[in-house]
């Protein structure tokens, strides 16, 4: 079997497994997994830019929040239904990533990190400033009645899980497809050696910009999906914390792997969940585990797996 076929089989099997889990998981874990899948979409969006293109952004909360507020504000204040509102969220993420991309790509390295961080902080402050509409830190609940697409009630746990799975599968298979194309390979080439890539005849700037658009829009899809499925939008999701999370998830799971972001998100979610059962100092336990992982699996869980055993993992 060719590597491409193996990759598709593996990733489709993961989707099938997650679908099967829908019917067997206990209620608590069922809800968690739905949440993890949506957050993993955010991590996958982040991974497209960081893991594959090698651009470290500290401002992805801006894109996540663009999706979330693009969707929720149109539902809340314009009374749009959930489907079109999702599209507004996506469009918001696309527009925002275009603006941020055009400006921030004039910089590189540390300056790029700072510029993206600043844009995201501006976004966070804007959410607070327009508190009249966004209700700032306190946020607002999206009413159950609004959380429907084609008559399907997304607040119902079963529907919510399946909707999360559809979003997750879409993001994962898009990522898988992109990294197999010539475009995706050029992104990796840029990550590995930007100057060489330019001198092989590739428009590096254009590729980076497209990577930001894809990354930002996928992050926005996650933000919009999260708001819709869990019925809440608040300023926390635009804060710097939410810019750091996807970086951590991706690093843990394996930057530049298709499955890594999901594994990383899942791992971190349950690490905090389980350690908070043991002690109130759960962040300490989580922190030590993260340090150990960074020491012994610096390429992340899936990254290590690829390095040691499964070389064909995309």
């Amino acid at each position, binding site marked *: 079997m060719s590597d491409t076929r193996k990759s598709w089989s593996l990733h489709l099997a993961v989707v099938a497994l997650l679908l099967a889990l829908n019917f067997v998981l206990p209620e608590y874990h069922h809800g968690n997994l739905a949440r993890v899948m949506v957050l993993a979409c955010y991590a996958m969006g982040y991974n497209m830019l960081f893991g594959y293109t090698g651009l470290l952004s500290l401002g992805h909360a801006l894109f996540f929040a663009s999706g979330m507020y693009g969707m929720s504000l149109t539902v809340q204040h314009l009374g749009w239904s959930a489907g079109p509102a999702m599209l507004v969220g996506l469009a918001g993420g696309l527009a925002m990533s275009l603006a941020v991309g055009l400006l921030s790509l004039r910089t590189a390295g540390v300056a790029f990190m700072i510029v993206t961080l600043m844009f995201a902080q501006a976004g966070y402050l804007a959410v607070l400033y327009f508190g009249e509409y966004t209700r700032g830190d306190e946020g607002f609940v999206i009413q159950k009645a609004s959380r429907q697409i084609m008559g399907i009630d997304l607040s119902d746990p079963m529907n919510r899980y399946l909707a999360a799975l559809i979003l997750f599968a879409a993001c994962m298979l898009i990522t898988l497809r992109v990294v197999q*194309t*010539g475009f995706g*390979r*050029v992104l*990796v*080439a840029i990550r*590995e*050696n930007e*100057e*060489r*890539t*330019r*001198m*092989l*005849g*590739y*428009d*590096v700037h254009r590729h980076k910009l497209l990577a930001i658009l894809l990354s930002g829009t996928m992050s926005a899809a996650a933000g919009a999906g999260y708001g819709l499925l869990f019925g809440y939008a608040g300023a926390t999701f635009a804060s710097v914390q939410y810019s750091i999370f996807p970086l951590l998830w991706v690093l843990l799971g394996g930057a530049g792997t298709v499955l890594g972001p999901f594994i990383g998100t899942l791992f971190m979610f349950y690490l905090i969940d389980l350690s908070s059962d043991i002690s109130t100092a759960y962040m300490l336990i989580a922190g030590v585990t993260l340090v150990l992982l960074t020491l012994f699996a610096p390429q992340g869980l899936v990254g290590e797996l690829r390095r040691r055993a499964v070389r064909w993992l995309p």
Partner: protein
Amino acid sequence: MTLLSTRGLSRQFGGLKAVENVDFDLPEGQVRALIGPNGAGKTTYVGMLSGRIPASAGTVTFRGQDVTNMPAHQRIRAGMAYTFQITSIYGRLPVHENVALALRWRTEGDEKETAKRVADALERVGIADRAEQLAGDLSYGHQRLLEIAMGISQQPRLLILDEPTQGLADSEIEDFIKLIRGLAGEMTILLIEHNIHVVMQTADAITVLNGGQILAEGTPKEIHENAAVQAAYLGTG
């Protein structure tokens, strides 16, 4: 027919005139060596040819088109291939993917054709048996060959080699000379080279840069006998 020419090409870094007013013509099909002492402006000059360094003044014409303001990646696509002075490959990617990246825009997503051309290019430089290795695991000499394979796989009109034999062992240099001679009929080659032996063995013509200006130009024999060149570069004797 002239493939590449420059008129009044200059570059200043602050007060330093690295390259000054260079008029240069490279006929199609020639192997031209560009030599000169350290700091003569060779790398800066070639940087302006390939688009890595913007020119302060003057023009670059390639295949009859003014490319002075054309970005580097477009010049590559117009038919220039460039190898770096300091080996620049994708160390963490397999050898075959290094070459595939060099030519995928030519084959337009036809992976079969890509694989065939990759194999040809690696065969050509003699490292076909190492296609599956990570490029970073190759010996230094093989990395240099890989870089040349990346260049020739693009089937360029002009191949620019910036100090390709730097750091190679003597036996590797002899193989390199053979390789260049083999390529000579197929593409125009601009060779920036320190090793006079290599230059004398491969070049049809030589241009000598000194202090950012052209000091002399001619056949290897003429350059060898030129008193000014000897004084500036070759040493007397």
